[in-house]
């Protein structure tokens, strides 16, 4: 249990370095960048839902908040370093306040899901109704439904005219994801992370052990929001425009779907789920024979029927069957999610 953190870091570094080197040979860096960003977004929900048991139907709220914070700050500051920091801090604070409200109100389970969903919809409706000229923050018009285009994109800290874009931006995003992944791994290995998993398993027991689950859930929720906010800021830099659709129900649903497909409760599942599904969507857009909504629907239904545990756990299981090494983490995660479902039913 102890001591393997450094091994974990090494593995992450080696694997991500290999991927960063190999993937651009197959897929354009521009496409890879967005896949990485979605992967980070998936990871943010995987962390709080998979490891913290916080059912969040509104993760898009923090993604959108990060993107908007970045865009607004970048217009006002004319450089990108402070806006990047703000894009992480603002969603984290917002989520912490919401978390205080929710967790100290003893909201649990599906009721949490509804509150997070509703808060996201409120943000969505608010941002959507800011088309008028009176909605201005500093020099930035909020722009309502059309969003905010034309803000300063990522630059070398201290030099606003040295833009980081194209391939360089891909490397920045890839390194960011690897860093976030290592931080999440470290978090999960720390006492805090293990206590969080304990809380997911059995809140009453953990509170009878003397842990303040409200505070811990709030902190975890806030960390998840910070990661989503970072993903949002990276997205803003990638797309060079932010629109309210970042806050939309559809965006939130997609994040959940990524995590389910990749498998909750393991760190890489949500990342690969997100990147995989987003890539399928991008590929689908190149054909116009059959309605793409229909194809995506069929893929998801077939998936849930034949790979019910999620992609990564399924692959891990296949690996175990083939090589006969028992890996508890993977097989356990699948079961846990099912159990939760049963507890609700």
């Amino acid at each position, binding site marked *: 249990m102890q001591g393997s953190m450094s091994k974990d870091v090494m593995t992450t570094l080696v694997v991500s370095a290999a991927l960063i080197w190999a993937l651009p040979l197959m897929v354009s860096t521009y496409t890879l960048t967005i896949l990485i960003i979605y992967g980070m977004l998936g990871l943010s929900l995987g962390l709080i839902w998979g490891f913290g048991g916080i059912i969040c139907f509104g993760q898009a709220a923090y993604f959108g908040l990060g993107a908007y914070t970045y865009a607004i700050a970048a217009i006002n500051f004319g450089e990108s370093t402070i806006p990047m920091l703000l894009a992480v801090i603002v969603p984290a604070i917002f989520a912490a306040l919401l978390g205080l409200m929710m967790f100290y109100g003893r909201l649990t389970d599906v009721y949490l899901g509804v509150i997070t969903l509703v808060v996201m919809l409120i943000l969505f409706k608010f941002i959507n109704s800011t088309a008028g000229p009176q909605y201005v923050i500093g020099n930035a018009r909020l722009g309502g439904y059309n969003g905010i285009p034309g803000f300063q994109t990522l630059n070398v800290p201290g030099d606003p005219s040295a833009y980081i874009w194209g391939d360089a931006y891909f490397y920045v995003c890839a390194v960011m994801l690897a860093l976030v992944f290592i931080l999440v791994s470290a978090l999960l290995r720390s006492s805090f992370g293990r*206590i969080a*998993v304990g809380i997911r*398993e*059995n809140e*009453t*027991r953990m509170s*009878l*052990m*003397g842990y*303040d689950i409200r505070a811990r859930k709030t902190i975890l929720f806030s960390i998840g929001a910070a990661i989503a906010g970072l993903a949002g800021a990276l997205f803003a830099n990638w797309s060079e425009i932010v629109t309210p659709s970042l806050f939309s129900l559809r965006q939130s649903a997609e994040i959940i779907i990524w995590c389910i497909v990749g498998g909750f409760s393991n760190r890489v599942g949500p990342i690969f789920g997100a990147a995989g599904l987003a890539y399928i969507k991008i590929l689908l857009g190149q054909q116009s024979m059959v309605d793409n909504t229909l194809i995506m629907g069929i893929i998801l239904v077939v998936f849930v029927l034949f790979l019910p545990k999620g992609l990564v756990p399924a692959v891990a299981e296949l690996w175990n069957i083939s090589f006969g090494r028992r890996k508890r983490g993977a097989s356990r995660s699948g079961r846990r999610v099912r159990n939760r479902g049963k507890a609700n039913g």
Partner: protein
Amino acid sequence: MAEIVLETQGLTMRFGGVVAANNVDFTLHARELRCLIGPNGAGKSTFFKCVTGLQTPTEGQVFMRGEETTQWMSHEIASLGVGIKTQNPNVLDSLSVFENIWLAARRFHTPIEANRKSQEIIERLALSSIARADLGQLAHGERQRVELGLVAVGDPWLVLLDEPAAGMSAEDVERMTEIIHELNKSAAIVIVEHDMQFIRSIAENVTVFHQGSVLMEDHVDLVMADQTVRNVYLGKKA
């Protein structure tokens, strides 16, 4: 006389029109071992929940080592050094025995200290052979024992147990009895229990609950011999 570690004054709990606990005055001294008995619905579980912070009483007060804890939440009470075990085995099913106990130990110790402490408890409770197994795979008796481990690892001065012997084999009960006596060397213990056999084997003093109130409080043998108590039990259970 030893220090009073747990005291309630006029503790009352109402659910709508139903009075589940009615004006309960209760006192427990350091290193005392007390069983709460009574027929189903007598109010002992409600009393237990009010004391452990799982519910907030409608009226009355709870004191632990003289400090009022009436409005406290479970984790605050547990943080005082109170070990609590609820009615059904309440453990972390998908984690191993070691991980369960480690999490309980971590609350009061540094990670390294927690490792040592967990190891020690596992040995003391004879759980070494199953230390790496997930709780979900264990038998009922083993799970109960692990939960006692969770309670014991925090070195509590007050232990509150709700039906620790329920559904266990005779062998398991015997082991449980040993552990409880061991705990009792340093902690006062309250046990809510049905099983008279078990109570006789473990306790000296019992408190009898009936219809939300304390009916009687005395040595176990005297209580067992009491006609009112017998009526309550037989009347209810027949």
